[in-house]
């Protein structure tokens, strides 16, 4: 199931970003950490948005909206 993989991908991005953020914070590069967090959020949101569009399309066709 491609759509179930999405949850694992999002969780992986979340854990990776958290680790990168804490490492960069320890190295006194807090602004880079913020950028990494922002990039992670943007990538995750883009991945989710594709599925959201699919859901909206299927609801639209199903209920003749």
């Amino acid at each position: 199931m491609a759509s179930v993989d999405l949850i694992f991908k999002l969780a992986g991005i979340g854990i990776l970003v958290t680790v990168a953020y804490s490492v960069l914070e320890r190295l006194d590069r807090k602004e880079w950490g913020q950028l990494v967090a922002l990039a992670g959020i943007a990538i995750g949101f883009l991945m989710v948005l594709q599925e959201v569009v699919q859901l909206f399309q299927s609801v639209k066709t199903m209920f003749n909206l």
Partner: protein
Amino acid sequence: MLALMRVVGVGLMATVLLLVIREERRDLGLILRLGAGVVILLLLVPDIARVVAAVIHLSELAHIPSLYLALLLKVVGISYLTVFVAQLAQDAGEAGTGMRVELAGKLAILVLAIPLIASITETVLKLIPS
């Protein structure tokens, strides 16, 4: 039945993963929650389509005008989407945004119902002898 097991598994998985992520980063937790909600609703789509087809078949048997049924389905679809988004906003602590989305959904349903209300009013007015 298969869809139900999948939904249960996805819900369990998403809950555990959210517990890990939400403590550290609330923003990514929100995106993960949105993803889980979308995935679960997408898994439910085939079952809903089957139910809708059955309802349409039953209404054809009962000779209900398809106009009314299409309206009913539209209302169900609007509430499905608006409740999804409003619930997500409420989970994120943005209850005001969620309420506004719900208001927009109610307004859309009311706009759809206006022709029906008008026709009912006209029928009632015809029945009343002036």
